[in-house]
């Protein structure tokens, strides 16, 4: 029962981060500025949701932990690559 409640709290928190971090995407700021917010929503928010899912189905923990680690790794690398690319474009043009 407590686990269920905790899982709901985690997923809600993750959804809040998703909403908050995705919103600046429609604004007119530089891609780098948006990237900071995306790292809040897509990395941290998604990790919170994954933890919520993990609390709901603990029997599948090995695969979920693998997904959690690779989520953090890939999103961070993607952020670095996108930052590097978008900056190169700015200095060219």
């Amino acid at each position, binding site marked *: 029962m407590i686990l269920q409640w905790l899982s709901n709290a985690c997923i809600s928190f993750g959804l809040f981060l998703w909403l908050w971090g995705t919103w600046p995407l429609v604004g007119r700021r530089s891609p780098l500025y948006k990237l*900071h917010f995306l790292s809040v929503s897509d990395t941290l928010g998604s990790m919170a949701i994954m933890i919520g899912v993990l609390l709901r189905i603990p029997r599948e923990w090995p695969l979920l932990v693998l997904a959690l680690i690779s989520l953090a790794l890939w999103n961070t690398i993607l952020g670095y690559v996108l930052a*590097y690319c978008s900056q190169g474009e700015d200095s060219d043009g």
Partner: protein
Amino acid sequence: MNYLNFALRLTIWLLLTADFGLVNLAIGILVSLLLPQGRGGVATLRQWLSTLGKVVMAVPRAYIEAIEMIVRPHRHEAIIREPVDPTRAPGLIFLDIFTITFTPKTIVLHYNEEGWFEVHQLVERRPEK
């Protein structure tokens, strides 16, 4: 032997197969030893452990920074340079970049071989020039 490589391969194997039996563990160790090794500098175990500790500490710090960004809007951007020891092993430099980019307020833009990162930062107040 590269500690991080070995640990990473074994962990992925164990999580992927979800079987912690002795036979599976032996297969995992064998596979992670037999897979081709990359070249690169060697680092001491102490360096690995301290860097891995920083990576683990980055998770709660990232959430704290996210909450800070929500509570107090950070509207300004700044680019700073951070020195890094150029003789560090490539794996450690990768972990450094990971730690900095993982925290939402900072993103590594560029790594220069001469020994510094270019870090893009989100700040509350307009930086003085």
